[in-house]
């Protein structure tokens, strides 16, 4: 039995890694030349984030940035924290996160900042004191306004619609929904939002929820799908239902939306250029690491995107863009 003790003792020793007081990260010496930027999506498998990665890599290559890209393969709030913890230990110069869950991630992001790592949030924000800068794809007011314009046009200014969202806790979507409600009250008194259903960023789930919605609320004539996998899911459900009086609009990726835009089930898809979002995020991270980010108009030189305004800790990509049957073929992401 003494041998068991030895086994255990050695195991503990090995696990403790002998640690000669390395004591955590510190800023992490910049790799030869450029800074190391660690960038995390909410979900690596989502084509939305795949295209963000593409744009981010493009900027990284131009700027001499070493880009790390990792994140959960499924929506799991604990996973994002674990990856950030590992990056803090590894030592990177900038951590850029698309936040799945505000409260959970903010603690580790604060820890990263305390260790001298610059923190950028992009696509979805954390708590304000947990990051240096938020790279915003579009303002919630802008998104809500464009989506409601399309909905109102489709309903002829009067009628019922429903929303298929990402998850009921997704920060971005909830911010948009809040703005949609405000603008509904102020500008569209005859439009009625009858239900909000979750899709958990899953196409199949969006399909199921839309089918149920159509049965439970036959008066709904527009489905507004505000998560990128939810758009084709909702459109497929409407197509299979044979209800030609129901149209889908929403916020999604052009490639996945193409077939539905072409056959008319899907009227319009609103989005920003996701590759530009990734590109801008890496540009911001690079400027932060090198200390070249300036406040005010044109405070950031964003390469092929031109100069961008830096408003405190907020940098906006631009106004949303609408993909339709006519223009969608010009895009491939």
């Amino acid at each position, binding site marked *: 039995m003494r041998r068991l003790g030895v086994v255990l003792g050695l*195991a503990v020793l*090995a696990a403790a890694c002998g640690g000669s007081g390395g004591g955590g990260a510190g800023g992490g010496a910049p790799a030869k030349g450029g800074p190391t930027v660690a960038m995390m999506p909410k979900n*690596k498998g989502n084509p939305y984030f795949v295209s963000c990665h593409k744009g981010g890599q493009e900027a990284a290559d131009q700027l001499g940035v070493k880009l790390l890209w990792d994140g959960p393969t499924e929506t*799991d709030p604990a996973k994002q924290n674990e990856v950030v913890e590992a990056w803090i230990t*590894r030592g990177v110069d900038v951590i850029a996160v698309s936040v799945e869950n505000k409260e959970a991630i903010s603690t580790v992001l604060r820890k990263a900042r305390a260790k001298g790592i610059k923190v950028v949030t992009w696509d979805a924000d954390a708590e304000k004191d947990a990051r240096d800068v938020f790279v915003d794809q579009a303002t919630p007011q802008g998104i809500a306004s464009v989506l409601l314009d399309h909905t109102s046009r489709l309903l002829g200014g009067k009628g019922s619609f429903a929303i298929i969202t990402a998850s*009921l806790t997704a920060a971005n979507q909830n911010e948009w929904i809040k703005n949609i409600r405000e603008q509904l009250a102020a500008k569209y008194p005859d439009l009625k939002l009858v239900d909000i259903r979750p899709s958990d960023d899953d196409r199949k789930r969006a399909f199921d929820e839309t089918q149920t919605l159509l049965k439970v609320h036959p008066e709904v004539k527009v489905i507004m799908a505000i998560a990128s996998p939810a758009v084709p899911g909702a459109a497929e459900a409407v197509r299979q239902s044979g209800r030609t009086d129901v149209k889908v609009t929403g916020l999604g990726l052009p490639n996945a939306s193409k077939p539905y835009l072409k056959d008319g089930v899907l009227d319009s898809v609103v989005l920003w250029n996701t590759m530009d979002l990734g590109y801008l995020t890496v540009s911001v991270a690079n400027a932060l690491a090198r200390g070249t980010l300036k406040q005010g108009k044109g405070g950031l030189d964003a390469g092929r995107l031109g100069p961008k305004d830096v408003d405190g800790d907020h940098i906006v990509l631009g106004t949303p863009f609408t993909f339709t049957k006519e223009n969608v073929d010009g895009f491939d992401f």
Partner: protein
Amino acid sequence: MAAPEAAAAAPAPARTGRGGHTHEWLLLALVVAETAYFAYAGSNFFTTGNAGEVARASVEIGLLALALTAVILTGGIDLSVGSLLGLAAVLMGSAHRDLQWPIAAAALVGIGVGVGGGVLNAALVARLGVPPLIVTLGTYSLFRGIAEGFTGGIRNYTDFPPALLFLGQGRLPGGVPAQVPLLVAAAVFFWLLVHRTPIGRGVRAIGFSPEGARFAGIPVARRLSLVYVLSGAMAGLAAVVYAARLGQAKADAGSGYELFAITAVVLGGTSIFGGRGSVHGTLLGLVAVALLQNGLRLSDQPAELAGILTGVLLIGAIGANRLVAERSRA
């Protein structure tokens, strides 16, 4: 009661023998190899700071795996622990925020929910004799379902007080993550229980042969109940640690944890058919998997690789163990 039980069970597991620790040595070599490789390939892997983070990240799975070792030694399984963790976490969050209970009381609610879930599993397995796979597959859905229903899938309990957050995020003097002593205490408890008490011998005897154990005078139902209740209690405790570490409790807390825990147990050499296995093996299995995940991240490898390599590790280790066992028998 204890005396005849001890005497009766003694011949069954016998000694795993001097040569019986091959698997543990193999695992230890693996852990050392992982450490050496990642110390070379990873950045800041071989530091006390990182050792702390690996330990911190392993506590919840570790608590579940320790209790599961006892369950699996009886030839049973408990698939419900991850779901029970989620249920305990949200009810604890609700007790704290909705009922305004002090955090210590809320934590006891979490552990109590775990024990309650364990009692339900125990009653169905031990009293009604329903196969554990079926019982806990049922409660796996049941517990998660209640947690989702209770929160509508939406509510996320946050705003936990600093005292609880310290347990999950703080460090004790000497740099030890605050939750690690809990895992150490649980490890000592389960090691003594399984390897040093008549109860432990009874548990193994049940794993070898429930009928034989019954004829040998072992209170089979009572022993089975104990391991499932302990499993639930550990899920409750893990829920408290989870909420403390992430500062939030949502219905999806701990999803998939049951499989990580079972992986650690099986990798640690415990036979899925019961009878054979050890608590220290489980700890080694836990460390091997945790180091792999951490090390891959620190050497900039994608997270998917961790899944692939964990699978390879599990199949490889068990296969190697089988080969060695065959050869030594031949």
